[in-house]
């Protein structure tokens, strides 16, 4: 890098607005889809694991192993299958990471439902499906939401590693900055990734508040006391 290079060259940002936007959108898609897929998969898996305890050990063992693997390695391994610089190559491993966080979240969330509540619902004549949808899942929302926040924030930032295989959303800015040896794209990229993550996190918190009005009452009581 040239010694007199300023940290941010605003004109560069201006000139490359459309590219930055394109990368941002790509990052959003590749960051959120894994969480969505992960949730859709984690719900049935988590349900099965909480119903049949014997499944949970091997399932969480497998998920822990997957979680331990570096993302770059997983991207590489998928290339022969889904191709280089393809969205799927990034989305599949990120979905697995999301699963590793969300399955325990679903299980813990369902476990957090007090036993007496579940039994009261059964005694009142709720069918198992109704009980799940109207009683257990709503109560599990806070725990599951916490898991979703973790999965979303780390997912959005992990997407950038995909730049090394040609598809990394805002990560492309990091590669550009490194190759051209000036910091502006990098700083823009980092700032945007963090902003994106914080915004997504904030929206999830908001969604959580809307979904659990009963918890709001307790929150307010807690703040008043």
């Amino acid at each position, binding site marked *: 890098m040239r010694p007199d290079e300023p940290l941010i060259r605003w004109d560069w940002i201006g000139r490359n607005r459309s590219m930055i936007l394109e990368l941002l959108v790509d990052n959003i898609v590749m960051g959120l889809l894994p969480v969505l897929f992960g949730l859709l998969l984690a719900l049935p898996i988590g349900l099965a694991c909480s119903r049949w305890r014997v499944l949970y050990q091997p399932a969480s063992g497998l998920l822990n192993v997957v979680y*331990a693997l570096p993302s*770059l390695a997983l991207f590489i*391994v998928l290339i022969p299958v889904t191709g280089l610089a393809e969205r799927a190559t990034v989305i599949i491993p990120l979905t697995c990471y999301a699963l590793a966080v969300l399955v325990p979240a679903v299980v813990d969330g369902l476990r957090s439902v007090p036993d007496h509540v579940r039994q009261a619902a059964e005694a009142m004549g709720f069918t198992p499906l109704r009980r799940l949808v109207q009683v257990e899942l709503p109560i599990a929302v806070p725990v599951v939401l916490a898991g979703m926040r973790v999965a979303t924030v780390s997912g959005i930032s992990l997407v950038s590693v995909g730049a090394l295989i040609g598809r990394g959303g805002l*990560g492309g*800015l*990091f590669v550009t900055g490194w190759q051209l040896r000036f910091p502006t794209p990098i700083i823009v990229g980092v700032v945007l990734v963090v902003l994106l*993550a914080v915004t997504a996190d904030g929206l999830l918190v908001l969604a959580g508040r809307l979904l659990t009005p009963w918890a709001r009452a307790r929150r307010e009581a807690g703040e008043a006391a």
Partner: protein
Amino acid sequence: MSWLADFFGDPANWAGPYGIPVRLAEHAGFCALALGLAALVAVPLGLLAGHTGRGVHLVTFTANAARALPTLGLLVLVMLLAGVGTLPVLVPLVALAVPPILVNTCEGVRGVDPDLLDAAYGMGLRGHQVLLRVRTPVALPLILLGLRLAAIQVVATATVAAYVGLGGLGRFIIDGLATRDYPQTLGGATLVVLLALAVQAAFTGVERVAVSKGVSRRVRGG
């Protein structure tokens, strides 16, 4: 699969300063160093924050902030600003390893049953004795979990750091991608996966051994 045979079968890949054993040693060495430094900083801070209750919000905030930071971006930025060399790479490696250790250690210490603390103080243990003899052993599962998560983070970050010039197993991946030598890339990825699995297994083993059976409730009979 023949790609793997191509890569691991070639004796040239096993010898010399760019061979598999050297790269593996580099990678493992760097990770161990980074993890050690991170633990040196984060464990005492976490113990203190959890024990005194001060700075807990800061700890939580740090953990959340670190999760949002893109590793590649951080590496590239630091290396660009600091110049060439292996030492600058340590900075983001350690920085990203600190939050999991910090937050889990803090949570572990804070989560100790208050009744237990009451009994400990009531028996006449002093503050530091309560921290070392009671809170830490009981918090050990979470502390070790934090170390395991940090180790995973470091192995992954070091892999990506090959892009900015670090040695280690990531080199096979990056060099392979640059020269379109897919066997090398895949070979590197496989090695990284194996290392990560080994690290995971090692830490799980340590957890089993180090945590008192009275805390993990893992005793037969009873």
